[in-house]
């Protein structure tokens, strides 16, 4: 693994949107000695399949899995995540919003204790700050992060054998990291690090994957508490 390399991985089905997302990444400050690369996966059959394909294509130690409609606006994003990962080797994965504990429904945003901040437009398609609980330390350790952006310092396979669609791949991956002994966290963001231009999201087959998640991880989650 190349510890001086970061790879930005996206599943793409909208070229204009992805091009815009890349424009923001190219405007970030890249510390001296660090190399960034891009892997875009087209025609993925699922998020997990696409991300596994992207993961295998790169030898970068640090991988940033992000939706094609996410724009990184913190110019010091790269420096900050490298500093955090160096200081917290047990933290395997970071996100920008998520939940302290995944509730019985498996739906992270139904949790009582939520953390992080993002600029997004899922509510009524008008951009707004989504400010959840404030992270006061470097990192808040959580159980689940939203899949809009998932930043890793270790490679673990995405469960394409179970989640062959577009939902619950994110919370599944959080469970996989926790099972492997790593922490998942949300960093302190003085200003939002990202914009998620998602609009009102599709919920097609959401309940199907919710049930798969509950069936597969229910026992593991109970045992870990």
């Amino acid at each position, binding site marked *: 693994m190349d510890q001086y390399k970061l790879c930005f991985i996206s599943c793409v089905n909208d070229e204009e949107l992805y091009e815009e997302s890349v*424009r923001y990444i190219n*405007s970030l400050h890249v510390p001296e000695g660090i190399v960034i690369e891009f892997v875009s996966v087209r025609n993925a059959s699922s998020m997990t399949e696409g991300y596994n394909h992207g993961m295998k294509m790169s030898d970068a130690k640090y991988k940033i899995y992000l939706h094609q409609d996410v724009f990184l606006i913190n110019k010091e994003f790269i420096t900050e995540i490298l500093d955090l990962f160096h200081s917290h080797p047990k933290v395997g994965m970071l996100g920008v919003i998520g939940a302290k504990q995944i509730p019985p429904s498996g739906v992270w945003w139904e949790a009582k204790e939520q953390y992080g901040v993002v*600029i997004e437009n899922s509510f009524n*398609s*008008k*951009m707004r700050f989504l400010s959840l609980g404030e992270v006061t330390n470097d990192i808040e350790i959580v159980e689940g992060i939203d899949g809009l952006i998932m930043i890793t310092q270790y490679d673990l396979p995405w469960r394409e054998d179970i989640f062959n669609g577009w939902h619950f791949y994110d919370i599944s991956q959080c469970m996989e990291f926790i099972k492997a002994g790593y922490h998942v966290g949300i960093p302190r963001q003085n200003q939002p690090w990202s*914009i998620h231009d998602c609009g009102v999201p599709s919920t097609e087959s959401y309940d199907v994957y919710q049930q798969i998640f509950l069936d597969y991880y229910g026992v593991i989650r109970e045992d870990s508490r």
Partner: protein
Amino acid sequence: MKVDRRLTFLLRRIEHDVDREQAILEIVKVLKEKQYAIKDICTVIEKDIIYKIKVLNTIGIGCFLNDEYDSVIPFLEVALRYSPTDPDTIYNIGYVLTKIGLNEEAFGFLNQVHCLDEGVLELKQQIKAKIIN
């Protein structure tokens, strides 16, 4: 590219300093070529932009610096409607008015608004001196 999306992308780049100068020039160009009206841009700002006042001021001044004079004050006026006490907007309106020779109007405007910002007060003094001389 869809109309709204193109404008959104350009305005958001200005908002977050991503290829900002190029985005300003593109906005000025679409205004000059009448591909979009001021109100189209303001509609997108209302829906898609968080830092509305910053973007409106940037476009207003961008129009001024690139000879798209008819659009300058309208953008700054929209910014003023969002925040009637914003010192940057007040300064920019006063500055633009005096630069196009409307010193009396600039002074009258700065007298109307309640703003104790150092830059605005200094500008007011400079305009007053021009009127007296």
